[in-house]
């Protein structure tokens, strides 16, 4: 074990290698590692954010769904009400119409009855006349009536 000038040579080597590491090895590696760390941190943050947003979206969609359901229920109720109204209205209208029709028919029937009565009345007169004629024809006795006819002739 003897210390000699190798010492100086080794110190020079050591200094060279420190310089290489300091200038060419450590800074790029440190940068790459720090960048990667930042990227990973960003990625994790983004994932967290995405998760949060997804939760929010789920909540929003649930809200929207609930709202839509409420609205549709309301619409259905309204529609039902309206339908009922329409049915009621139709019923009313139908009744009015029916009444009208019935009244019309009644009036027509009355008219018809009146006309029939009229006709009957006319026919009754005729029949009465015909009956009377028949009766009269049977009752007429030329001899019995000759006096009257003679009298009539005399009046003329």
């Amino acid at each position, binding site marked *: *074990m*003897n*210390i*000699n*000038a*190798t*010492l*100086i*040579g*080794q*110190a020079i*080597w*050591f*200094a*060279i*290698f*420190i310089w*290489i*590491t*300091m200038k*060419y*090895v*450590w*800074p*790029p*590696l*440190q*940068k*790459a*590692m720090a*960048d*990667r760390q930042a*990227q990973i941190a960003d990625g994790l943050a983004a994932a967290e954010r995405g998760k949060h947003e997804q939760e929010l979206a789920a909540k929003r969609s649930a809200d929207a769904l609930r709202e839509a359901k409420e609205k549709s229920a309301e619409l259905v109720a309204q529609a039902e009400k309206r339908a009922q109204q329409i049915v009621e209205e139709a019923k009313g209208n139908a009744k009015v119409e029916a009444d009208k029709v019935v009244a019309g028919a009644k009036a027509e029937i009355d008219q018809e009855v009146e006309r029939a009565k009229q006709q009957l009345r006319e026919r009754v007169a005729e029949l009465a006349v015909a009956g009377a004629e028949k009766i009269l024809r049977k009752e007429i006795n030329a001899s019995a009536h000759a006096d009257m006819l003679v009298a009539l002739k005399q009046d003329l």
Partner: protein
Amino acid sequence: MSAEGGTLTTSGYIQHHLTNLAVCSDAAKDATGHCHGFWTFHLDTLLVSGILGLVVFGLMAMVASKATSGVPGNLQSFIEMVVGMVDQQVKDTFHGKSALVTPLAITIFVWVFVMNAMDLIPVDFLPVTAAAVGVDYLKVVPTTDPNLTFAMALTVFVITLFMGLKIKGFGHFMHEVFAVPFGLKLAPINLLFRIVEEIARPISLSLRLFGNMYAGEMVFILIALLGIWQLPLALPWALFHILIITLQAFVFMMLTIVYMSMAAESH
């Protein structure tokens, strides 16, 4: 395998494995051709550590230049895992702001780890290969050379000093040197304590790594001497050694971070 060409003795084998490939001027050589004195260079330590460092940091720089913040490839993931682990340690321990601490810790951990990992290559493999191409000595684990560990520890020491001065300012730094822990009245004692502390740090830092790796290498060499019995022993020791090389790299890195944080924070 002795370069001396003599008979292969046990101590000669061990000695050979523990000798660095040294180069120096002819004037510094002794009669047997071995180098002495300060101006000697351990070529194997310099080359192995340098090539390993260039390969591994070159690879890391290449991957880093193409690093994507999207889905990373296998290699990028692996490097990011290592670098991220080191960065986490720095973040846990060092609370100041400095562009230097993390790269320094990464450099230490990765470099020391790959140099220690040379220990897992069978002990004779590279030296014999080197001998075949005419290189007499080759000590393949650079961290078993105290020159390397001292160089690293001293570099860390210097960086720590400069960082302390830069972050605290000269006045505060000097005040801390003279007034902690006993107050200004006992300034000489404080200074002495500080000097002991500052000297003890790089020595313990470097000798810990050197001692662990040297001992580990020694055990590998001793196991290699057992003939056929090395087969059941080398594997468990290598497996155990994976733990040691990682742990030593981690300890060196961790202590460096701690020293830096102590330099940056007020006592």
